[in-house]
């Protein structure tokens, strides 16, 4: 669902509404592995979002996922073109081209690219599926101006 105008593109993104409300349940992570209706998975191998505690749960929890950079450093270091910048921010990932070198994982300054069980990567495609499963109003799927 994209509307392009001359200069500004408006697109839907996974966004944070209130990070402080995150309870670290990881329902978003498990939802992400189910996101493809044709091949939903159980587990976390293909999850592109991660709930972590802030060095121990006494300091609370937070979630990490792709911030949809306009000029994504991960795509810059990808040697095969498996990661390509997406119009309006973020990346498109073609797993058939991916070597599993993980240069992108090192290049991402917020650690939002994850390793799958098969050695390839998982990165958020901003489909919004997970936001339906966040019980505590941390995540939402909204139109943003890029």
């Amino acid at each position, binding site marked *: 669902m994209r509307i392009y105008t001359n200069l500004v593109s408006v697109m839907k993104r996974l966004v944070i509404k209130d990070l402080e409300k995150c*309870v670290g349940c990881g329902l978003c992570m498990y939802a992400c592995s189910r996101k493809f209706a044709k091949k939903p998975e*159980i587990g976390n191998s293909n999850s592109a979002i991660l709930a972590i505690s802030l060095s121990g749960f006494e300091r609370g929890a937070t979630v990490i996922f792709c911030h949809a950079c306009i000029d994504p450093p991960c795509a810059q270091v990808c040697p095969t073109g498996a990661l390509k910048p997406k119009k309006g921010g973020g990346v498109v990932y073609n797993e058939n081209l991916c070597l599993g070198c993980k240069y992108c994982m090192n290049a991402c300054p917020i650690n939002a690219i*994850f390793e799958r069980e098969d050695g390839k990567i998982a990165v958020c495609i901003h489909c919004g599926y997970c936001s339906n499963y966040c019980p505590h109003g941390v995540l939402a799927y909204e139109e943003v101006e890029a």
Partner: protein
Amino acid sequence: MRDAVLIIDLSNYSYEIEHRPNLFEEWIGGVGVAVQLLKEQMNPKADPLTEENVIVFATGPFTPAYPLASKTVALFKSPLTGNLGESHAGGRTATSIANAGYGAIVIKGKSRKPVYLVIENGKVHFKDGRALWSIPDSLVVGRILAENEPGRGIRTVMRIGGAGEKLVRYACVTTETYRHFGRLGLGAVFGSKRLKAIIVRGRKKYVPADGKKFREVYDEIFKKAIESDAMKKYHLLGTAANILPLNELNSLPTRNLQSARFENAEEISGEALAEHNLGRRIACSHCPIACIHLATLRIPYENEPYFYKTIMISYDYELIYSLCSMVGVGSRDGLLRLIHKVESYGLDAISTGVCLAWATEALEKGILSEKDTIIKLSFGDIKGYLKAIDYLYEQPNDFYRHLAMGVEHASDVYGGKVFALAFGGNEMPGYHTGYAAHLGYATGLRHSHLDSAGYSIDQKEKSLTPKELIDKLIAEECWRQVLSSLVVCFFARKVYTSDVISKAFEPLGVEISEDELKKKGEEIYKEKLRLKVKMGFNPENLRFPKRIFETESLQGKLDEKFIEEAKKYYVRSVNEVIGLGSSPHYTLITSE
């Protein structure tokens, strides 16, 4: 289905992975599978604190597929009771074990030097634990490991504090700072094996047999969970919500159960804690409820004005009972300080509170002297209790060495049996609701209020005969074997009704009817009971502390004759199960 069993031997630092599809098919997972593994791997006569003891951690088929399948079952021989030990914990343990590819993990033997384990898919690392050993604070151990080991967000860090190292028989294993394999002394078993911690981490995928159906059933369960009463109740106030109602009902054990009403209940209620102290809520992995309530404790430094340390403490009903009403402490600040102390050493809060309550009364009655207790213990004296908890860990004299072995043992040595509140050797949980509660503690195979939830029966049924009551308790316990084999959180028991469970199995490629599920529950119960008897359990020896007949409960004063009759019937039904007669058929209750 996940069918890998990881077997680790600490005596020679080796491991193997076995695939056991039949085991998981026949016994579901969780407690069902763990009972079988313990039967295979351990001599039932094993000494719990030697290398002969075996620990089994088992997860169920719904982890990590569905929400609220967030628990792991641990089975072992309990150093507290000398019998079957069973304890369940949440946190990230279950999902991490599942995402690392295992259905169950078995730990045998004993390490020569302190170690910790790092478990991944297909691999176990034995790590030098000498530098961590003798750090008494389980929080610090957790932080060190979290900083130094990779896998944040996809791992569990299970560890013991000083109490486990010092073999306090009711030491716990803490996971993710705030959840515990609390009861029956798994921490001491870790300590005896020189095992300081276990980290499990993993990222794995499983493909459902029917993907479309899987998403549908998931959504159905998710919706039911979000809209359930449990979601509201346990998220809002948590289990602490029960303090006021149970106090109202004359059921909140107070000052070693000399009373069942606490005059300061308001002060330590879930409502007061939420209003004044609640800082945040967190959740176990894959649980939408987020029942874990963290309160802020602000401790001023004594000699430095305007300096404070601020600590987040998790509280629950059982801790408020054991560390407040049971020991006469009526302040939230006192509660949080006591919880913090118990958490640091890695002690089971219920057992600690009950032991201290007994010691206080024994001192008052002159059974103990201050030479034994070193400090004066009196109900409500927070400072005294904080010191006494230090002594449980340090064990500076014979008295604390005995008290660290549980209230049953300490009262064997010193007397005061009448008011030593333990059932089957396990310290009493916090419900003096009536017959069903106490009979449940005694007959439940882990001597816990969670075995058969007698406290709930007491509130609903007032005119059952002893026989009917035992049947009802056992029927509930049978059904709970299904839940603890799946392993779903008991707070989700109204979400996971038998029809939902049966439906949830389908997309995973397993066909099992509601009737079959119920039968499995009975079979698992019987298998567990048989194992318990082999370990030396004799229902004839069950002791009901006199104190429970002295203090009015919700059901008024309890009659010893009723309990005697119920016990007789229970002994008969145990004998039938172990083959001294035909086996009874229990009518199952699947909801409350």
